[in-house]
């Protein structure tokens, strides 16, 4: 086995160590490279920025703790922006395992912005059925959620005054980690009840949502940790996402380096094999 072949079969623990260090070192010693804002993230920001005070903004946190590193910073940034703009915020989730986390992020950011539950915002919680929940909310929000997450009757909440269904919501954003999320909100919600829809998602599902973006089915898309970092830059509140971008830069470059090296060794091995075969003939 020559050097190239040996390198192709390198112990995977060396790769794990490399990725671990590439994540850890930039977190301990951040560089803080400039983050360019993409048009799809700017669209979401601009739409919220243009909403009049008191408009109803629904944030559906459709993810579980597995996607917390990417989607939690997006939720924090969006909630800060919405509360700063004095929008009436409705929080909810279509993912049962994410309910506790969603409740925590909405109430925490609201507390930081000095907002009151029931008056400035409401967290509706989770209800079974996903697509049928959206349809039910589109027909009658109070039938879909007779009470909020704190068991307060939704009909009595000042924050929902004048809101009968999804038709009265100015802007919906779904932060999605999978198929029950942005697409579900478009197919069963926006298409029939005609509200504006934006999306936030994990990096891995972002490419699959570009057709919706290009056709105007969603007006903007915040993709992964990078999207969250862009949003933090836009609202001028740098948080966990911006802090994580250096680590992401380093790991992306580590993977690029590994892929290039593996291809160099692969070509060297193939060339030497070809030469050996020719000499045998």
């Amino acid at each position: 086995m020559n050097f190239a072949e040996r390198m192709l079969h390198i112990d995977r623990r060396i790769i794990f160590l490399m990725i671990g260090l590439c994540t850890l070192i930039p977190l301990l010693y951040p560089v803080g490279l400039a983050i360019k804002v993409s048009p799809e993230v700017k669209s979401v920001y601009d739409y919220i920025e243009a909403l009049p005070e008191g408009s109803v903004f629904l944030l559906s946190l459709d993810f579980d703790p597995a996607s917390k590193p990417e989607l939690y910073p997006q939720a924090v940034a969006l909630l800060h922006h919405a509360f700063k703009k004095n929008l009436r915020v409705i929080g909810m989730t279509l993912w049962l395992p994410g309910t506790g986390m969603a409740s925590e992020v909405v109430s925490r950011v609201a507390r930081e912005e000095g907002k009151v539950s029931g008056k400035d915002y409401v967290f509706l919680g989770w209800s079974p059925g996903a697509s049928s929940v959206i349809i039910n909310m589109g027909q009658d929000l109070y039938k879909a959620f007779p009470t909020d997450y704190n068991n307060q009757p939704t009909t009595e909440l000042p924050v929902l005054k004048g809101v009968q269904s999804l038709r009265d919501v100015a802007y919906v954003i779904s932060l999605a980690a999978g198929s029950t999320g942005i697409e579900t909100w478009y197919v069963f919600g926006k298409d029939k009840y005609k509200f504006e829809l934006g999306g936030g998602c994990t990096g891995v599902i972002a490419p699959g949502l570009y057709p919706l973006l290009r056709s105007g089915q969603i007006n903007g898309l915040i993709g992964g940790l990078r999207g969250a970092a862009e949003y933090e830059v836009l609202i001028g509140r740098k948080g966990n996402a911006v802090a994580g971008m250096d680590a992401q830069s380093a790991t992306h470059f580590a993977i690029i380096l590994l892929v290039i090296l593996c291809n160099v060794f692969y070509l060297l091995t193939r060339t030497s094999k070809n030469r050996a075969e020719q000499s045998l003939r």
Partner: protein
Amino acid sequence: MTFLRRQLPLLITLVTGLLFAAQYYIPHPSSELMLTSVSKWLQIIGGFALILGVTSLFRIHAVKIRRKEPGWGYSFVLYAGMIGTIVIGLWHGGKETTDGITTTFGWIYTFMMVPLQGTMFAILAFFIASAAYRSFRARSREAAVLLIAAIIVMMGRVPLGEHLIPISGDITQWILNVLNASVRRAILIGVSLGAVALSLKIMFGVERAYLGGGKE
């Protein structure tokens, strides 16, 4: 019995399928009222489906434990975890906090479920890097194109890439917005047409797999 087991479900499927396909195009108040009621039914059925799922999970793992099949210890851990969480969850009324104080149920969620799920997902980064090194090779012209596109997108999605090669961000945007979006759209259209065809087959009783097995 055949009527109850076969004909009746087929009839219900046909009638409701046609009714709700038509409902979308009829914005009459009575049509909307019907949709409101049925969507509420669906939510209730969704709740029962959850109970069904949990019961089925319990049964499968009970069999594994009883027969002492390989890995039955994991089934036991699952049992203990589920029963413990359900009992504690019911005790606290499903609340993570009460008057600002974290409940035991909230503690389990925050300090066990959240970090465990986060860890499982984070491990992916290490496996992706290892897998990329072992299998992302330019074995053919098509693979080489994929490889170059992947490297450009990986560069263009991070600040360091845009700092070193400023144009990588714009090329990434073009790849995602034009090449990727058009291919994804083609796949979506194909999948959607397939879903429409399957729905029609189910509605008209051509596809009956959902009725399950059993004698006629």
